[in-house]
């Protein structure tokens, strides 16, 4: 666990001097070298993990504003690079291949970002009522745009239902958010749903599950476990969703 914390701190520090210049498609600028390349690979890895996690996790996960904006900045730079290179009559023989590679990667990254956003939209759509009525803690998981969307969706649907039929119901039956414990109207993510996880670092002690069963999470192993049981380890990077 100490390792995870250290890694997190390293991450934070790295992010601080992250505002290096990005030199799209061109030569590696000597001054940045390794660090920048490592950062890029880490960012890609993060995006891949986010995409997988958002698709497999029953709950909506915190939106990674920083990563997505870093990546979209680089996307934009790559588009500019392509434009410049294709309009340059002096372009070398290599540049066709370069453009092909840059474009292919561009599409790959766009596919992942779109997939990430769509997976989130799917959950936001499904749990809009839950998300729009929740405390700030839940809302913090959404991006600004997602928060605006969820609120607008909730208001507009409510207005639509009211106009179409709810207003003709008796007062007591007009609510959409009646949340009695036995039959709540508001759909919420089921945190007990099973997920596939890979253990990245040994988790000390046994993880207790229901029915007095427990499981020992050892590095490299793959388990199917209730999301709720591994959520804490996911947060600190001791397990990953697969």
């Amino acid at each position, binding site marked *: 666990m100490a390792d995870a914390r250290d890694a997190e701190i390293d991450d934070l520090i790295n992010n601080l001097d992250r505002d290096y210049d990005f030199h799209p498609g061109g030569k590696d600028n000597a001054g940045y070298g390794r660090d920048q390349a490592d950062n890029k690979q880490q960012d890609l890895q993060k995006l891949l993990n986010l995409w997988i996690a958002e698709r497999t996790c029953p709950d909506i996960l915190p939106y990674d504003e920083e990563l997505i904006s870093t990546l979209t900045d680089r996307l934009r730079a790559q588009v500019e690079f392509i434009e410049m290179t294709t309009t340059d009559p002096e372009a070398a023989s290599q540049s066709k291949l370069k453009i092909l590679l840059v474009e292919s990667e561009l599409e790959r990254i766009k596919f992942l970002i779109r997939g990430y956003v769509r997976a989130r939209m799917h959950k936001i759509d499904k749990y809009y009522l839950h998300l729009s009525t929740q405390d700030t803690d839940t809302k913090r998981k959404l991006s600004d745009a997602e928060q605006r969307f969820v609120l607008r969706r909730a208001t507009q649907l409510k207005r639509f239902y009211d106009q179409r039929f709810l207003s003709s119901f008796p007062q007591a039956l007009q609510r959409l958010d009646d949340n009695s*414990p*036995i*039959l*709540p*109207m*508001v*759909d919420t993510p*089921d945190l*007990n749903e099973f997920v596939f996880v890979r253990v990245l670092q040994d988790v000390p002690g046994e993880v207790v599950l229901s029915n007095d069963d427990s499981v020992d999470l050892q590095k490299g192993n793959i388990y199917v476990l209730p999301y709720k049981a591994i959520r804490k380890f996911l947060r600190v990077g001791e397990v990953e969703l697969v």
Partner: protein
Amino acid sequence: MPTRYYNIDDILTDAQKIPAVFQIPVPGMGYLEHGRSESTDIKQGARLELPLWMAEPLAVSGESDNLPNGFVTVSPPAPFNSRVINALKANAINVDLRSQTMYFFRLGQRWVELTGDETLLDQILQAFTERAAIVNDYAYNTRSTALMTDNTEFMGKLDETEVKLFRAAHDASRQFKKWVSIKK
């Protein structure tokens, strides 16, 4: 997990019939009994099949000194009679659950929740586990790409939960085959 408000399977499970015996007369509700008119009463001791959503609250409420068993007493719905359960024990996969109820397992869960009948629960769990594995086998052995043409007879015995399992497994297998064939 609470019943999900907008879930069609949960709603239809709620509509499954439960045999109930009224412990009290209920004026003006006689029409709930088949073929009787509105003006009649439900008599004390009347046997009625009530939908689960109605039977459940009536069964767990109304208890008092002169009414030790609550408003109604319930007995196991037909799908859980001993004939079906014994057949499941003998050869789980051959039992035509769908003809019993489309929601055998969901109803089973609700029934056990209501009655605390853990023996029945164990039998249901056992049957579900056994049948699920075979559902998976069938889903993978299907040759035709058109969904479920070869498996009509087998599919006809599955309850809704199992049909969903079959679809999931079948889709996964089909998608994989499709991917491999595109690659080649």
